[in-house]
């Protein structure tokens, strides 16, 4: 049960403020929160803060702060879940959640808040029930057009069928506005995986963890039944065995409460009747046992002449993806010892870029093809650097040459191997054209750390 709810921009400007119970403070609470947040010392957690007799709890979403205050000692999990759900709901209604869309749709946001929370208690957050009450329509910045190909990315591209949708295709308001009836019924299904890897300095793999989600964004009218078929050989848990060969395995799976699982056991098919809007159908995780090799291996070699202060770092990056795949927006971030003076570099490809900034080296590779090897030689001057004692050049890394972390995206690739075989809609809305179904698979790095 919350007392107030407000949304601040990333700079602390209040965009939305709503007081539900009228029992604590007034509008200045928002400013108080921001001041307190920016004044926190490094080791204090900003998630829950206390002032006077109010608790402030907040989440950050797309740069905005969504904050709730309460004076009761309530469950932090429920409250955080409520804030996340509100963020998703606002995103569904306004198209996407950022400062611009909120400022354009202030009336809609207040109406939503009125319906979702009554006197601080949650009434409902389900799209179905809310659409009966919400009258205001969302204002979008420009009408969406499928022919706007200037921002086409490689996502969602089925090159054989030459159907392409830009990645912003899903970010329009879910409910059709009354004036525009020509919007197509569409369904977007994303299989998104986050990869966390930790590799020790001798090259051994310390930790690998994949967190995956199957997310559905449906613009179809509620009640349309849909069946999602996953790879048949995928096994849950360590002891299950299906099909021939090593198969695809995940450790744990959890489903949204509205998913029907009768056919899951036999054919790995999920059945559900999704409401309009966003929904996480399935969550799964996998650790320690990836079927495919890791996407990247780094082979660093460090030469450090303590006497002259010259540090030479040679990085060889090998991409172990299958030859037809590629990795996009690869960035290697390598913290450097304090006092690095200059940097000279030799890179193996023309489109790469490396620069020194904030005490670290940033090496950008826009596109890396599977199976390729890229290298970069970086020479730096680091006068007066402390480290393990010993004169003359050494190959051990000096202090401060931190672990290298990679960030990248792997389109059309899932690290666990899980794929969506089909997406079928059982109900065909009469009068409308065949709904479009967009399925994409995507992996990206969460924390890919290689120690030097």
């Amino acid at each position: 049960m919350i007392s107030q709810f407000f949304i601040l921009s990333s700079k602390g400007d209040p965009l939305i403020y709503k007081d539900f119970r009228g029992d604590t403070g007034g509008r200045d609470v928002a400013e108080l929160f921001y001041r307190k947040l920016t004044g926190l010392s490094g080791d204090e957690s900003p998630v829950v803060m206390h002032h006077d007799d109010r608790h402030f709890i907040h989440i950050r979403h797309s740069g905005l702060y969504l904050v709730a205050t309460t004076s009761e000692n309530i469950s932090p999990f429920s409250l955080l879940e409520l804030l996340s759900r509100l963020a998703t709901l606002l995103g569904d209604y306004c198209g996407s959640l950022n400062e611009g869309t909120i400022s354009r749709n202030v009336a809609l946001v207040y109406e939503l808040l009125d319906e979702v929370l009554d006197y601080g208690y949650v009434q409902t957050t389900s799209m179905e029930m809310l659409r009966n009450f919400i009258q205001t329509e969302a204002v979008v910045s420009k009408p969406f057009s499928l022919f706007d190909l200037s921002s086409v990315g490689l996502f969602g591209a089925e090159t054989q069928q030459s159907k392409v949708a830009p990645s912003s295709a899903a970010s329009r308001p879910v409910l059709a506005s009354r004036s525009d009836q020509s919007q197509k019924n569409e369904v977007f299904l994303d299989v998104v995986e986050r990869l966390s890897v930790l590799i020790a300095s001798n090259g051994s793999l310390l930790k690998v963890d994949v967190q995956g989600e199957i997310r559905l964004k449906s613009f179809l009218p509620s009640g349309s039944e849909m069946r999602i078929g996953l790879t048949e050989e995928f096994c849950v848990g360590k002891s299950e065995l299906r099909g021939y060969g090593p198969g695809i395995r995940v450790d744990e799976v959890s489903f949204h409460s509205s998913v029907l699982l009768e056919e899951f056991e036999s054919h790995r098919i999920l059945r559900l009747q999704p409401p309009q809007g966003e929904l996480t159908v399935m969550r799964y995780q996998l650790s320690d046992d990836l079927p495919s090799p890791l996407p990247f291996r780094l082979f660093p070699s460090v030469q450090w002449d303590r006497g002259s202060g010259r540090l030479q770092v040679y990085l060889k990056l090998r991409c172990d993806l299958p030859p037809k795949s590629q990795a996009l927006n690869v960035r290697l971030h390598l913290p450097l010892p304090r006092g690095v003076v200059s940097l000279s570099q030799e890179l193996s490809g023309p489109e790469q870029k490396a620069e020194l900034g904030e005490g670290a080296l940033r090496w950008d590779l826009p596109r890396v093809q599977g199976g390729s090897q890229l290298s970069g030689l970086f020479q730096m001057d680091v006068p007066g650097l402390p480290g393990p004692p010993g004169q003359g050049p050494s190959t051990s890394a000096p202090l401060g040459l931190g672990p290298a972390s990679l960030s990248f995206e792997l389109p059309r690739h899932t690290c666990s191997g899980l794929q969506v075989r089909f997406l079928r809609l059982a109900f065909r809305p009469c009068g409308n054209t065949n709904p479009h179904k967009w399925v994409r698979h995507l992996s990206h790095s969460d924390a890919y750390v290689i120690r030097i």
Partner: protein
Amino acid sequence: MPYLGSEDVVKELKKALCNPHVQADRLRYRNVIQRVIRMPKLDQWGQAEVLNFLLRYQPRSEEELFDILNLLDSFLKSSSPGVVMGATKLFLILAKKFPHVQTDVLVQVKGPLLAACSSESRELCFAALCHVRQILHSLPGHFSSHYKKFFCSYSEPHYIKLQKVEVLCELVNDENVQQVLEELRGYCTDVSADFAQAAIFAIGGIARTYTDQCVQILTELLGLRQEHITTVVVQTFRDLVWLCPQCTEAVCQALPGCEENIQDSEGKQALIWLLGVHGERIPNAPYVLEDFVENVKSETFPAVKMELLTALLRLFLSRPAECQDMLGRLLHYCIEEEKDMAVRDRGLFYYRLLLAGIDGVKQILCSPKSDPSLGLLEDQAERPVNSWASDFNTLVPVYGKARWATISKYQGPERRGPELPNAASFATSGPLIPEESKETVQELPDSGALMLVPNSQLTAEYFEKTWFSLKVAHQQVFPWRGAVHPDTLQMALQVVNIQTIAMSRAGAQPWKAYLSAQDDTGCLFLTELLLEPENSEMQISVKQNEPRTETLNSFISVLETVLGTIGDIKS
């Protein structure tokens, strides 16, 4: 009222739960609960609310308890973290007499908690980590096999990394200690000094059980000659030799050379202490201390100087020849030239002690120490689950116990006033004091009634001063029989927010009491109760700091009712 699916269920639930004498209406309550639990169409918010309401319910029999637990089992597997945690808390509280059920539930909730710890949402991750720590206090081995999930990743914010390091420190066991220590060792050379220091302290924590490996790692860290690392390592050593005397030898071998890299007060204190207590095993101890003594004039921290005095005296007892001269100079400086009085006092004390004879000094400074292993056992005593079960799934673990204690001090009692005690006497006398019936859901009190608020800040001096400055606003006598029981009266007055400033003990003649109360507008009521030796009537004198007859009359009636009830009980 939260919306739970249909209007009449809400009405029934309201009626059942708003009745304070729940246990008096068991049958209806139980039926409502059963019906509510079986409602299939609740959404996750409704489910969380129901789980919260059920915390108040006491099952009558073991059979009923397991009945409820079976019905709620499905909630533990929900996809909503709020519902899962709410169900876990309910299980823990309902099953407080069955520790094996509690352990079972905690095993079932391991999966969701670990998933939350690796969640994309940082805030959820943090809340989950705090709860993991809470569980580890009672079941230290619970997450040991999943230690890899708590490795810190480079991009995480500082507060999450700190929590993870604490968790790693607490889940160490024989199988994972090697990997955990290696990981922590990697953190010790992290770019962020705060984080590195936290990792070193964590290694110090693990060192209590796995001393040899940790001391080796810490010694290696000293070799890096980094200021922020060395100071924390020396502090860790100081704490360690106290608890684990077996590592003293290794520590003493590692110490020489550190003094060059320590500049801050804490580090210096730790080093000096170690040199003083174990100086006979460290060859160059006197020379290091001599350095400090030479520079004592420019030393800015008085704590360091105090530590230096004690340490040098200790070392003098074991190596007199080398330290005599230094000690003399140090004492001379502290007594004659030092401006900080605490340091001077200590110097003077030691000087006089030395004058009294060397045997006296030995007795005082080198007496047998307390057995450190006792402290270690107490520290590690596992707290039973029931001690924190009611805090699970609330904001208490997120803040931490210490912070929560300071917060709840500020908050004071609830706005709605204190709850009625279970004394039967109050129940029979009907609505005792009309202003106080907060169980019926009344949002605002009437403007004419009196709302007394607790004011614990009124001191005796202030009372006295105000008492003498005001004139008596109202005086009356109240029929009374027999002696007064001060404790009962004080408690009864406390319930209605009337504070007792002073009260004579039972049987005193004449018997007097001074009371104070404050209403929500800030108007003070000061009261004197006087019972003459004849014991037939009590004289009440009330003084009010703002002349308001209405509220005065209300206050008098409150007071009379309390006195009347007390009088009725004992007679």
